[in-house]
């Protein structure tokens, strides 16, 4: 329990540090929202005047403090580009991205488990070699490329997959699933290779343990023995990397959402950066960091709990 409180406290500090670093970096890189909105119509006088009018001429630490105090009160400001509350924008995008990521996980995890387990049991046999080759290929293919291939050769040819856009689940569950299926598969591609590798190696590791020899000596049926010990390790193995995978997913989400024209958080962040929409970037980054931290925290806690249970079982 003490450990958990300590983790939560350090997470909060981390979130503040990240928001600060983000803010500082945005101040350092050239170009700001004013210059971008004025474009080639900008004259230096106009830029200075508009900055002053928007309160962007204040020193950066004043601006940061003002943002930070508002953020503490739950007010993340108004997006310069959209004239809309950052929170409203984020909440309207979240369903798309969350569903997309969950769907990717739902596709990737069971598939990775099956392939990983079989590959480990048939180590160095044909299945294992094919699985390993596929893993290499999966790693090598960039996601934007797979996404484009899917778009041109699957979405364009098969009527049931829309080329672009998102159908909310409240409108049609079928439509929603179909509009996210291809993008989710692309995302799943990006994480599946790592997952398979982890499942496979954890299986192999357990299979070689002395207790496996014991089960054979004591006459336990091999299938039963495998289900009871190595498979368990293999099942929780993905859990340890899922936190890392999710932060990886976020970068994939930006690409996939752009290609499939999905109105999600990734694309929102991408365009916010291009337009230097300060409050929107800060809001989104803080949110993403917070979620990654929370997910890691949850996986860690789950892991501890599962481990405890296992230890109890063994004793």
């Amino acid at each position, binding site marked *: 329990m003490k450990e958990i409180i300590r983790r939560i406290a350090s997470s909060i500090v981390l979130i503040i540090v990240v928001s600060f670093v983000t803010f500082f970096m945005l101040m350092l*890189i*050239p*170009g700001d929202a004013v*210059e*971008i*909105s*004025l*474009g*080639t*119509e*900008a*004259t*230096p006088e*106009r830029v200075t005047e*508009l900055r*002053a*009018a928007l309160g962007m001429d204040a020193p950066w630490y004043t601006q940061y403090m003002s943002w930070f105090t508002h953020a503490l009160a739950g007010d993340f400001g108004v997006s310069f*580009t*959209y*004239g*809309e509350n950052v929170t409203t924008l984020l909440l*309207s995008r*979240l*369903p798309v991205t*969350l*569903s997309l990521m*969950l*769907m990717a996980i739902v596709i990737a995890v069971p598939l990775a488990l099956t392939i990983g387990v079989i590959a480990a049991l048939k180590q160095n046999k044909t299945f294992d070699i094919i699985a390993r080759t596929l893993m290499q290929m999966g790693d090598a293919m960039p996601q934007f490329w797979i996404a*484009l291939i899917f*778009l*041109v050769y699957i*979405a*364009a040819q098969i009527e049931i997959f*829309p*080329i*672009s*856009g998102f159908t*909310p*689940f*409240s*409108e049609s569950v079928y439509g*929603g699933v179909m509009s996210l299926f291809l993008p989710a598969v692309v995302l799943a591609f990006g994480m599946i290779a790592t997952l398979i590798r982890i499942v496979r190696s954890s299986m192999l590791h357990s299979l070689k343990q002395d207790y496996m020899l014991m089960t054979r000596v004591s006459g336990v049926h091999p299938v039963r023995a495998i289900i009871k010990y190595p498979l*368990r390790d293999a*099942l*929780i193995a993905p859990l340890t990397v899922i936190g890392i995978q999710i932060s990886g997913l976020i970068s994939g989400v930006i690409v996939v959402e*752009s*290609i*499939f*024209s999905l*109105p999600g958080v990734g*694309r*929102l962040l991408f*365009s916010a950066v*291009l*337009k*230097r929409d300060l409050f929107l970037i800060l809001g989104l980054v803080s949110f993403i960091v917070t979620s990654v931290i929370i997910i890691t925290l949850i996986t860690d806690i*789950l892991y501890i*709990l*599962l481990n405890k*249970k296992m230890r109890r079982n063994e004793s």
Partner: protein
Amino acid sequence: MKTKIGVLFITLMFALVLSACGNGSDEAKELLNENKNTEAKDGLKIAISVDPDGLDPHRTTASSTFVITNNIYDTLVKVTKDGEIEPSLAASYEQSEDGKTLTFNLREDVQFHDGTALTAKDVAYSFERIKDELGPRKDNYAYITEVNVIDDYTIEFKAESPSASFISDFAYPWAAIVKDGADETLKKDPVGTGPYKLVNWTPQDKIVLEGVDHYNEGQIQNVEFKMMPDSTAQVTSFKKGDIHLIETTGDVVDTLGDATIIEIDNNSVQLMAMNLENDYLSNKKLRQAINMAVDKEELINAVWWGYGKQIGSHYPPVLKGYVDTTGTYPYDVKKAKALVEESGAKGITLNMKLPSDYPNYVAAGQIIAEKLEAIGIHVKIETIEWGTWLTDVYGNRDYDLTVVGHTGRIEGYDLLEKYNSTRSDNYFNYKNTEIDDLLSSIKVELDEERRMDMYEQVQTILAEEVPALYIQEPTRIYGISDDLEGFSAYPIDVFELKDLKFKE
């Protein structure tokens, strides 16, 4: 253990369902609408690649905004396809003898989308707003010193000096008329008098418009702009029939099959600017050499698939008063080499900053760089993001060469004024008193013939002095599905939804 995993999955699925229930009801309504649309041959779908920069016409310079707001708001006068001015919200207008006063008589039958009637007060407020500190075009309207409401339907504008672009300044989409008292919420809740009103805007997803009763009523009731950042997705959807109208590029034109392809002279100018602050580039001979080293036709073919018109100065062929100066420095590598030799610039290195957000400019820059290597000038290319480009090149003038485009205007003066040596947007660092004098005369010359004459002089001087390598006036290419007709584009980068209709 298994149950734990099971619980985890159920929780995940639950979160999925919950998160999906966010914005239910109006989406459902839309779906109903869509079903209705298909029966009456309605429901126009247009692909756009960039989100508008808010829907407030007075707070941005982004053409992605004007493509939409042009249909939501009206302006006092309008520009026709041929660049002539015609009445719009103003039923008529007159300019005083001395050219310093413009009086508009407003139509009396105009309503905003919320039902309030349009009066001169709204017009006065709109220009107050355009000219305030948050208005990006403030400087363009600074010469208007007085706005007087005469009565409910008459309004008068006074300028400090006669101006050639006085009337055309009221035709641009950024001179749109908004409601008296409208504030910064226009960015997301636009209220105008135009033929279409906003139904909803889901940023990065779609913008839904609906026709209203209007003196310029559109034929199509329901219009949806679909945001599709990826051009492959746009073309694929267009071919599949999900989208009726896309703006496209020369390379895919042949693959669009039955679609109508419309090519429109874009009224803008693309060029490679040179910084005359650089000692070598301040030498005209080197600039001439650079101009002779590049075969513009080849360049346009390579980068824009041949869609574009060569230019010889900062003036697009479609604009009134254009003279053909493309022959001033014909492609001649031998001569170019000799000129480089003469100017003592052989073996120098110039930096070229290219905006990565515009892949065409980057490609053009790379080709030009190769050509310059061939005449003995080294080019160090640096590709930078648009925001950085604006600061470095446009703001600080810290560059030698760059490739960029300038948006079109109805009056040539607005394009050319940046060559005035005192202008802060003269990023070429170009100084020529003759040009300065000509520009100040053009600005106040109301006689069209004499003005055109001076435009000709400016063009000839620029073509001779070449502070830039003038490349082309680009061609915009639109793909239109074969059941749609009436499309036309205007010389200010927009098209009007009201022109479009489905074939019977």
